[in-house]
């Protein structure tokens, strides 16, 4: 774990209210959360507790109804859609439960995707993607299409895609939720290595207590509120 204790993620007094007809659903209520640079944080809680909503706010995929979200000292809750998209491309690496790879692209091309939003040349993009695939141990599967890969391998490609731009934070939404125990463990080990060896700040939503044990800190949510923490 990094020794850097600088606060990277600063969520203050955040509410997130969804409207369904005349009904108001308070998914997050007056929530505060700080995540330090280099932390591996697990967000746990029952379904509907607001874990993914919180992750979406931190990742700039959604905006709070009230309160502020600052990443690396930069407020992102006031950015418009276009600014948020550009911000995500620079700062966020996303890992999804169902991998979300583009089926028409091979592993190499899938990993290169976020690099299309940078000014890198085609050769540089190829080199960066190859390096990322090497880190996740899939250097030799670069020409395989998603349908030719196992679930664990697809998730590794997903992680390679998330780290290829060297983002500020890695956000993982149930990264082992669709995997068997063995593949899940391998993915968790990979995330742990990225955190410990490369100092990546990781926030991971999970249902799985076993997964949360790999994190350096776990916070629990229930009904949109932060319940307790178990600092390492």
């Amino acid at each position, binding site marked *: 774990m990094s020794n850097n204790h600088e606060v990277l993620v600063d969520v203050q007094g955040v509410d997130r209210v969804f409207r369904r007809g005349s009904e108001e659903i308070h998914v997050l209520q007056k929530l505060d959360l700080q995540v330090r640079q280099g932390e591996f944080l697990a967000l746990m809680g029952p379904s509907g507790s607001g874990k993914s909503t919180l992750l979406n706010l931190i990742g700039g995929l959604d905006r709070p109804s009230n309160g502020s979200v600052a990443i690396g000292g930069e407020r992102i809750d006031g950015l418009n859609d276009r600014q948020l998209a*550009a911000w995500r*491309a620079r700062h966020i690496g996303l890992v999804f439960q169902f991998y979300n790879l*583009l089926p028409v692209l091979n592993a190499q091309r899938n990993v290169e995707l976020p690099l299309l939003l940078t000014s890198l040349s085609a050769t540089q993009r190829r080199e960066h993607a190859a390096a990322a695939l090497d880190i996740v141990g899939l250097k030799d599967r670069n020409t395989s299409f998603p349908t030719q890969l196992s679930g664990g391998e697809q998730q590794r490609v997903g992680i390679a895609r998330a780290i290829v731009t060297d983002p500020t934070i890695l956000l993982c939404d149930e990264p082992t939720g669709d995997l068997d125990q063995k593949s899940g463990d391998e993915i968790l080990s990979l995330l742990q290595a990225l955190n410990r060896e490369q100092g990546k700040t990781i926030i991971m939503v999970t249902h799985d207590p076993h997964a949360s044990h790999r994190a350096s800190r776990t916070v629990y949510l229930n009904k949109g509120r932060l319940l307790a923490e178990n600092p390492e």
Partner: protein
Amino acid sequence: MSNWFTQVAAVTAFSLRTIAQRRGAVLATAVGVAGVAMVFVGVLSIAAGFRGTMRSSGAPDVAIILRSGADGEMTSVFDRTETQLIADAPGLARTGGTPQASAELFVIINLPSKTTGSDANVPLRGVGPAAFTVRDNVKLVAGRRFEPGRNEVIVGVGASRSSAGLEVGRKLRLGTNEWDIVGLFTAGGGSAESELWTDATVLQNAYQRGSSFQSVLARLASPETFQIFKDALTANPQLKVKVQRQTEFYEAQSGALTGFIEGIGFFIAAMMALGALFGALNTMYTAVATRVREIATLRALGFGAGPVVISVLVESLLVSIAGGAVGAAAAYVAFDGFTASTLNWQSFSQVAFAFRVTPALLLQAIFLSSFIGLLGGLFPALRAAKVPIAAALRET
């Protein structure tokens, strides 16, 4: 900006690569648009062909003279004195001192159609000796000219194609008269090709027309002498005439029919286009729906809404243009040069003509297809742009 274009190119390429997975719906849309283009080109090629035939019937240095108030040869009448006064007017071309003017009349005869066997109206025209110099595009392709004073006819190639029993050497019985078919002629694709010609005096006698004519066709010394000729005739108190250039006359003759055909063509094409539009809308909505997680993933990674919108529009446009091009090409193969005949409402006689698939028509069909594609892709594209990213990422 180059980054934005890279995004557009990349997202569009992904979108196009998924077409194979949706080939059924995409093919149905392309076929729908192809149908629209084919019908559009097919119907309008009838109008283009008919207009082309009527246009090539006329020459700018030939004038047609009808009685004032007549809207066609059918309702016009002159006596021999009047036709001589017309021929003597200044501004006409002359050969050896003789004005190039042909006083003409025509009767409508019934001949069995080659295709249906039922009777169709065919004009039998009586022409003066100058007819062949006035209409210098008339060329004999078989046999010989009729001899003045004899019951002989020559047959236009259009009439010969559409009516039965008009081969050179055969006899034609009309009422109590029998005519020898002695020649076959072309007239540069003009409407004269749909006619039978004989000597005007013989026709007057055969049909008890006395010494009356219906029109005078006259070759001008040059296109510029039209006004001199017209002024001389209209200033003559012995004549009540309407003087037109032959080109204007045929243009007016074809206007009603081409307008009608074009009206029908546009109406059918518009109805079919509406159907194809819904097909395109459905296909593209489905495309967006099946790719909603992909679109959300791209947006989550930082791709903008603009490239997503453009990718949907480009796909819709390409599919429609491809369909339109195939339909237009099929129409060209099926219809261009296809010969038919129809009733010219101004003369109540058949005009044989060939469908014409012109480059302009093909271009219009492509524009129509593009329009269907753009409109069919627009709303699905906007829906794609509004995909709620966070929710759509978890779609399975």
